[in-house]
């Protein structure tokens, strides 16, 4: 177990280094930060001087080494655009993204699980088919369009929900939450649905497919043959076994929720790290972009680790500690 975690951690470090390297080397191509940092009156000499100050003229290796050295200390430098320490910026934006991701993740998981189980158990029902077809609409339109359409319907026409922002927020230490105010919760609805719709569809389909497989397993048949109630068979046995593979995929989905938040946050002006990233891309705010990518990688790595551990908890077959060998 310990070895397992250690191995995953080692792997994670390698992954993080690769991600850092890849993302860092890519920034040279997204544009010239200097030209956007200076006003239009700036001269060639001004630009050159700024370039020099920023160390952009240093050899790549030096820049990268510098970046990594500071990054491991949690220092990603100063945002070119907003002139604040990137770490602070990201930390202040992270709660918004995490809350959005968490809520839409929960939305996607709960609904996906419920509908997936339903459509698996009632495979031939018309309602199942309707759900299956309708859910595909969520993956057949680009997220940004879904977001805009939701705004149009629920904010402009019906005026039920806010069209942008987080509503009123409450500071809990450094964590700024919108979950504690009615407007904060209302503001969360549309973005969370937009973001979660795609994942919900994936999870629902996955749950359905896995559940159908599991329902055909011998142990399910045997459970029925023992006269266990449908409830016990479907939910006690089938669902639990379905969850094992679903956990892995769902975990990965959570990671991509955070990444896909880029689009949702842009559409809903949600003050999270995704919107920060997109603004940074436009401005070639390299420190923020680098930090964001490393953060995303970190989130993925952490989620992967948690998923692996969950796997361990759920599936006794992986707990080799009690060893089949002895018997």
């Amino acid at each position, binding site marked *: 177990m310990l070895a397992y975690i250690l191995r995953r951690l080692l792997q994670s470090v390698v992954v993080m280094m690769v991600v850092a390297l890849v993302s860092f080397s890519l920034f040279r191509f997204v544009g010239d930060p200097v030209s956007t940092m200076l006003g239009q009156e*700036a001269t060639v000499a001004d630009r050159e001087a700024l370039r020099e*100050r920023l160390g952009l003229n240093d050899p790549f290796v030096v820049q990268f080494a510098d970046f990594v050295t500071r990054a491991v200390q949690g220092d990603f430098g100063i945002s070119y655009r*907003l002139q604040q*320490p990137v770490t602070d910026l990201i930390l202040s934006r992270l709660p918004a993204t995490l809350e959005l991701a968490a809520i839409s993740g929960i939305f996607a998981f709960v609904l996906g699980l419920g509908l997936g189980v339903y459509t698996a158990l009632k495979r031939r029902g018309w309602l199942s088919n309707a759900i299956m077809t309708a859910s595909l609409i969520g993956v057949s339109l680009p997220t940004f369009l879904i977001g805009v359409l939701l705004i149009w319907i629920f904010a402009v026409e019906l005026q039920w929900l806010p069209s*942008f922002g987080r509503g009123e927020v409450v500071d809990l230490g450094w964590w700024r939450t919108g979950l504690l105010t*009615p407007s904060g919760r*209302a503001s969360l609805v549309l973005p969370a649905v937009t973001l979660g719709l795609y994942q919900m569809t994936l999870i629902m389909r996955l749950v359905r497919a896995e559940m159908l497989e599991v329902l055909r397993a011998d142990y399910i048949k045997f459970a029925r043959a023992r006269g266990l109630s449908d409830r016990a068979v479907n939910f006690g046995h089938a669902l639990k076994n379905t969850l094992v593979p679903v956990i892995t995929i769902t975990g990965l989905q959570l990671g991509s929720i955070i990444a896909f938040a880029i689009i949702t946050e842009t559409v809903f002006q949600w003050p999270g790290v995704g*919107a920060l990233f997109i603004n940074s891309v*436009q401005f070639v705010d390299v420190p923020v972009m680098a930090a964001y990518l490393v953060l995303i990688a970190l989130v993925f790595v952490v989620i992967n680790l948690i998923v692996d551990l969950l796997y361990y908890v759920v599936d006794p077959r992986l707990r080799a500690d009690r060893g089949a060998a002895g018997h």
Partner: protein
Amino acid sequence: MTFDRLPKARRSAALLGGAAVALALGAASAGAETIRWARVGDALTLDPHAQNEGPTHALNHHIYETLVGRATDGTLTPRLATEWGIHPDDDTIWVFELREGVTFHDGTPFEADDVVFSLERAMAETSDMKGLHGAVESVEAVDEHTVHVQMEGPAPLYVQNLTNTFIMNREWAEEHDVEEPQDFAGGEESYAVRNANGTGPYTVAERDPEVRTVLEYFGDHWAETPEVSEIIYTPIAEDATRVAALLSGEVDIVQDVPVQDIQRLQETDGITVETGPENRVIFFAYDMGSDELQTANVEGNPFADPLVREAMHLALDRDAIRQVVMRGQSLPTGVTMPPFVNGWTEELDEYPQPDYERAQELLAEAGYPDGFEVTLHTPNDRYLNDEAISQAYVGMLDRIGIDVNLVSQTRSLHFPLIQNRETDFYLLGWGVPTFDSQYIFDFLVHSTEGARGGWNGSRYSNPELDQKIEALATETDLEARNEMIAEIWAQVQEDRVFLPVHNQLLAYAMREGISLPVHPENQPSMTDVSFED
């Protein structure tokens, strides 16, 4: 069923229950109004000298003040300076008489020393404003309310450069270690980025960059009390979302209204739109100086041929662009200069009607009967409908046989192409903060050398003209100077250095009952907001 979507305005929530309610209560609310103001982007920093950029200045104008201001008609207005002028004895010195009885938000009185400090700070190496103060040699406080600015030579228009140079408090800056604008290489955040101590009409109550900024009226401000007592400023990047926020009543004023939505918004009950020209001209430019183009499929440089340039002018249907692409929200022009600018004349502003046949003849005459191929670079997120304008022109050029590849990209990729001379043909918009033609000549017309010609992507080089441009800087005889400007423009127009398209119209949409005039530099002040019954 309507959900309470307005709690953001905590301090005056009652007033915001609905515009109708507020209006019904009438003028009783004057002086205690909250305005929820949205535009596409946020101010990047509160440090007034760190970024020379429109939205940043626009917000800072509410917090800090400049010596002179710019009225919505483009004229200079007194702010912290009540009077200014060139020293009667020395035409290299500018004299500023300062307003008395002004205090900073922390209560410190405003003095000449603060001006000296602020101008010096704006000239610092890490300042983004230093380009506007390149001709300043030194600044001196003559007495508590008089400042002398010593120029390197005669600088008749220097005061025009001051409309965005904000005045800070020396003690406050020293106390917080922000005597100079932040150096990015430093690795530490500067205190001035998120904190401010100005003399402006509003103080910063809350600042969450790119999310929300709350400004409250500064009771000790010297000027008349504005009707708006609180500003909630929210950037909303997405066009559709921003318009939606206004339609759903979540904001009161929306800047940067997409042109296609203007008409519809005007027709919407409860919403008004105010439009006005921006001090910015949109034009195409081409590399007419190089021997070879980088992207053309023909040898030599077709743009170097005046006949080709003329043909291209004749192919541009500005009225159609105005009509369709800009939905009427532009002023087509024949000169690369907004009407506010000193040097603008109606004659220059005239533009030819498109004549595709003639254009084709000209091309054939120039030796390109079958046209040629070239790449046009356009930004897609900088000016109103920038991409669509370029696209429309691509279609028009196609009609005379010039086959254009359109490359549309974000501003951070587009502008370096011009600065680094990596594009043959591009779209650019040029704002003129000094409201004088010299600013245009310096950056766009003068050959690239030293501080001049930085944006001369046309590679236009006319030594004679260069000399005249340089002379403009020191010519104090305004009449003679204006004559020179006219001469330069005549040459520029004759050589067709640019292919001007139009001046943008700005549009501010707001809920009915509010009025806010359009500011030519797109820097509206909420002190100008008035509420009607």
